[in-house]
């Protein structure tokens, strides 16, 4: 087995070693699309963070697909694991009780974690971060709180009806912004150039949609995988 993989590695090594040196400014990687994005990205999309500019404006369709992949992961886990509403397995007896110190500390930290996560989401256009990173932090916070307050599947932190709408926030926000872009700027997923604030507002709406969607999905994945 190891021999077979080593044999497969030889062509990979040969091909990869012949690639242009990473880091050399004259490499084709920086020539075409990247040069345009670095030169015109900020004023064309209104986002200083060029990675967010590429993610939400130039290649917004990719990010729409990706947000739907994350939603599909939740749908998949629900299809495979979701227990019948009535017979949710009772909480395991041997679960170690969480010490009050931990509960108090986490309750104390919760607002700061939330503030940082919201900051990362909202400042996605101008500083490193964005919808996904902030959404994951919010999701982790929700997981932390549901463990600390012992709210499993019976009375989850997010009420199921609300949770299913929040989980769909990512794809739905993208669809709405895409149609809005079509109405104002003539192409699906386009950003209108004329009212500068409109472009900023649409990018912000996308970031918030992705953030809230990601957080709800991560909480959903956690509750399903934990099982009780």
């Amino acid at each position, binding site marked *: 087995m190891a021999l077979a993989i080593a044999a497969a590695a030889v062509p990979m090594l040969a091909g990869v070693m012949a690639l242009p040196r990473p880091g050399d400014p004259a490499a084709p990687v920086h020539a075409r699309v990247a040069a*345009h994005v670095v030169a015109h990205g900020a004023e064309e999309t209104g986002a200083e963070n060029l990675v967010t500019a590429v993610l939400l*404006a*130039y290649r917004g369709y990719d990010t729409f697909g990706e947000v739907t992949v994350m939603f599909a992961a939740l*749908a998949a886990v629900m*299809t495979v694991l979701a227990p019948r509403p009535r017979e949710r397995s009772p909480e395991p007896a041997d679960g170690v009780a969480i010490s009050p110190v931990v509960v108090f500390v986490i309750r104390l930290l919760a607002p700061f974690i939330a503030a940082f996560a919201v900051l990362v989401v909202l400042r996605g256009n101008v500083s490193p971060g964005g919808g996904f990173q902030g959404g994951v932090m919010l999701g982790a916070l929700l997981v932390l709180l549901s463990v600390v307050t012992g709210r499993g599947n019976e009375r989850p932190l997010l009420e199921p009806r609300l949770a*299913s709408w929040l989980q769909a926030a990512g794809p739905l926000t993208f669809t709405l912004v895409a149609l809005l872009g079509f109405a104002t700027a003539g192409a699906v997923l386009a950003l209108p150039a004329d009212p500068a604030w409109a472009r900023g507002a649409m990018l912000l709406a996308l970031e918030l949609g992705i953030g809230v969607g990601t957080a709800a999905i991560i909480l959903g994945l956690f509750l399903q995988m934990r099982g009780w």
Partner: protein
Amino acid sequence: MEHWLPLVAMAPLAAAALAPALGRGRPALAWGLGVIAAAWSLLAAVLLTRRLVLEGPFSYAMGGWPAPYGIELRFDALSAATVFVALIYLLVLVYSRRYAEAAIPAHRRSWYYSLLMVNLGGLVGFVCAGDLFNLFVFMELASVSSYALVAAGGGRVAALAALKYLLAGAVSSVLILFSIGVLHALTGSLNIADVAARLAATGAGAPAALALGGLTAGFMVKAALFPLHLWLPDAHASAPSPVSAILSGLVVNIGIIGWLRILPIFSGLETMALGMVYEALAWLGAVAIIAGALAALFQQDIKLMLAYSTVSNIGYIVLGLGLAHPVAATGATVHVLNHALIKSTLFLAAGALIHQTGYRTLHDLRGAGRVMPWTCLALSIGVLAVVGLPPTAGFLGKWYIALGALEAGRPVFAVALLAGALLIFFYYVRILNAFYFRAPAQERMLSVREAPLSMLLPVLLLAALCVLGGLFGRWPIDLLAPLVRQLPGGG
């Protein structure tokens, strides 16, 4: 008018996100949303194909950004497969309503329909993608939903089959992403037409050959070509029947259509590397035909038999492409579309049989012809089509591939093709014999009623399409011929 192109893929994905939220207590609402989305995609696909026929291939710049900077969607003869995808999906959804009530527990059903919608959106988006990374994202959408749909029915083997499918699919996706990374490092852009132009200009060396090898290996795992097909039989057999129809009919073709989509990039490659890939595909395709047919002979479970027949038919298609001859390549691409129709008919009909009788093996299904005449009629038409007899759709593709093999001066492949057809003929005669000419082995068979109308109509309609596909085969061939001529080897 061309604004319909992005909406064809976005509508099912938006419906997928809405389905669980709307259908919380009432899965029927989620099903209704699914049917509307599939109908919308079919309507838009027909209009787009009409425009394709009238004005030729066109593309759409997403978000208004010009081609190499933004994502470009491409609608050409290959993307006309969207009509087949949306049509089969609509029929499978109508069929799946009664089937899911028995097979999928109620509290998971709205998620099941949501996954079906994600799969539809992924397939349609994949077929219309003109950008390398966009191709990868929609391939992942279709793949993730397929892995979960295999395990949706529950049962002992389903989860393990789904995990084996996931591991094979994920490894091939990583290989494809690695190749896309190599192409990006070589050319700096991701638009397929732009990458092809820049690769031809700068002259491709070892990295381009590596990218070609990686993409070919990755897509051939997705298409379950012979040595890489081990994940397919269990996955397609243990999945719920409507899902098996979608997997064997449509999702398996991702590998083939993806490979055809990226082939023009390597037209500048020196002929030695490209020639080796074609030769390897031709031989693997020929071996796949024989191996798939032989394996199907020894199966008792009807769905496993159909799954191995998929491996054999993928062998036909890959052999057709591997011959690097325009006639054979046209035959292969047409067979992709016809095989989708045929295999969907067979799996849905077999699913109706299993749904009504509860039996899966040929021995137990003896005498089904008398109790369920219409379902068995549709199954028989599918059988004739898969064997490749003239009036049906299966004949066209195989005939063109055989013609191409002879014209390319490779009679050994034409012999392999005929041997495969003979083997397939044998194991399908066993099916017809068991249904019509053998006394029922299980007494319960006598009390079995015909499948419900909502399951029967889609199956009969698909069977009719199998025959029509054979009679009016000229249209897809004329549509695909110009595209095939531009393929580097096929031209």
